[in-house]
């Protein structure tokens, strides 16, 4: 039914202009739509984080603007838009201005691959997961450049920490994903989800899948720079880390991108382990767009776990961060891949 809306728009555009122009117009429309999703999603997640943090901390969280303070973040965003864009005098101006867009663009690019439901996925490439992992690692450049170009030592330390942290934890994210790819046998995201109709991978892959999930959660937290791996910001050590010198909208870009990145990590986890948009036991598979509901529920559940981490754990030190990655996660991950391959070879998966 709603699917018809897409075809209607397609036909309408074809009627108005030539096929080539219509195609480009459609792409622009999709891009604008995704920008909208990006902003709304970011603002919603900021609100969710603050509200959840409130309940964790015996507070209420934002509860004044709108129902349950739902519009609080919109008000904040409006405030940030109107704020002056300040910067240090000796900052490397070009890099300083360009840096937020690295983060935003990569977040948007990765979002194109997220399968919100069976129907809604902008870009279903056959090397989906690979594309996701490789694109998302560009984002670190934005943080790194911000730290470098701000001409602030706190930012610089934050930026340097990013480099170390990202290079290390990219490995673990990749390896955990590879473990699941071994089970799935494909890189295409829609196919990975379809394959889970018989049972979510976290159940069919059992022990190695659970280990891979735990590693993915840990490494994913590190990838999205959240507590206990928020060394990049580390407000008690570095003030605000890499975005110390950013204000107004540029700061908002980083802030939103951080939350959207968390959403992306959670989405990958949902796609790989919890069957993406699939409903449990296929109860609502017949209804179109029901997948959107199940996908959101699963993603928010995973995001809640991220938040739970954040409001419980102390931060690691930089050397402990590396110890955890290179001495614990990486070896376990390698063994885990072999284990998964063995299981798949012997047919021991469910």
């Amino acid at each position, binding site marked *: 039914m709603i699917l018809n809306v897409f075809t209607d728009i397609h036909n309408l555009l074809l009627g108005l202009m030539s096929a080539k122009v219509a195609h480009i117009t459609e792409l622009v429309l999709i891009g604008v739509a995704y920008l909208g999703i990006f902003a709304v999603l970011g603002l919603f997640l900021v609100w969710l984080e603050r509200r959840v943090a409130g309940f*964790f901390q015996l507070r*209420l969280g934002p509860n004044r603007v709108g129902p349950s303070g739902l519009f609080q973040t919109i008000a904040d965003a409006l405030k940030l838009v109107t704020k002056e864009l300040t910067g240090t005098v000796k900052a490397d101006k070009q890099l300083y201005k360009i840096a937020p867009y690295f983060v935003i663009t990569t977040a948007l690019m990765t979002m194109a691959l997220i399968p919100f439901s069976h129907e809604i996925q902008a870009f279903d490439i056959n090397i989906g997961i690979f594309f996701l992992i490789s694109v998302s690692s560009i984002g670190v450049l934005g943080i790194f450049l911000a730290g470098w170009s701000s001409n602030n030592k706190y930012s610089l330390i934050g930026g340097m920490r990013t480099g170390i942290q990202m290079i290390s934890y990219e490995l673990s994210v990749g390896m955990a994903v590879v473990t699941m790819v071994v089970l799935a046998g494909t890189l295409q995201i829609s196919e990975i989800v379809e394959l889970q109709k018989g049972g979510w991978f976290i159940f069919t892959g059992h022990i190695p899948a659970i280990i891979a999930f735990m590693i993915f959660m840990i490494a994913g937290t590190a990838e999205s720079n959240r507590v206990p791996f928020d060394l990049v910001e580390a407000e008690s050590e570095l003030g605000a880390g890499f975005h110390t010198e950013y204000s107004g909208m540029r700061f908002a870009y980083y802030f939103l991108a951080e939350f959207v990145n968390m959403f992306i990590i959670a989405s990958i986890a949902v796609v790989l382990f919890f069957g993406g948009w699939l409903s449990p036991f296929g109860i609502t598979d017949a209804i179109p767009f029901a997948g959107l509901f199940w996908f959101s529920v699963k993603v928010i559940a995973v995001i809640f776990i991220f938040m739970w981490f954040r409001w*419980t754990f102390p931060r690691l030190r930089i050397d402990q961060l590396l110890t955890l990655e290179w001495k614990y996660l990486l070896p376990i991950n390698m063994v885990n891949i072999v284990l998964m391959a063995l299981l798949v070879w012997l047919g021991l998966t469910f």
Partner: protein
Amino acid sequence: MSYFSDIINGTKSLLTGMRITGKYFFVNFLTRRDVITEQYPDNLETLKMFDRYRGEVTMYHNENNEHRCDACTLCEKACPNGSIEIVSDKKLNPETQRNVRYIVKHIYHLEMCTMCGLCIEACPQDAIQWGQNFHHVQYDRGKLTKVLNKPGSTIMSKTKEKK
């Protein structure tokens, strides 16, 4: 072998911590029971300070606009920061035919006051006492300088019972 026991014990300790915070989350999410914060400007009506709360120095006035201050300046002398200034004058008391000191202005600089309470202890007449008002916010520091005796107020005659 400590490698694996480290992992297990570490994970266990992390999960214990998550159980504590998780417990509070769900209790607050469902019932708001453990929420400890005050909803400040909303609860102004119901917010009552304790009787001994030291908010500001006030001067007691009865319903006839009379106070007990006889301008002895003991409070001014007791104050460590000079936040009390007393402007007094003398006038003839018609009954006793003697010049009696009376207060023109009892000036109280709230912005300098540290709420130490020495003035109130020093006062032999119990003329000044603690007020429980804590909402002192002003846009101008000058507005924090207050005159404690109300305009047109007179001193209570000694025969009246003390508070």
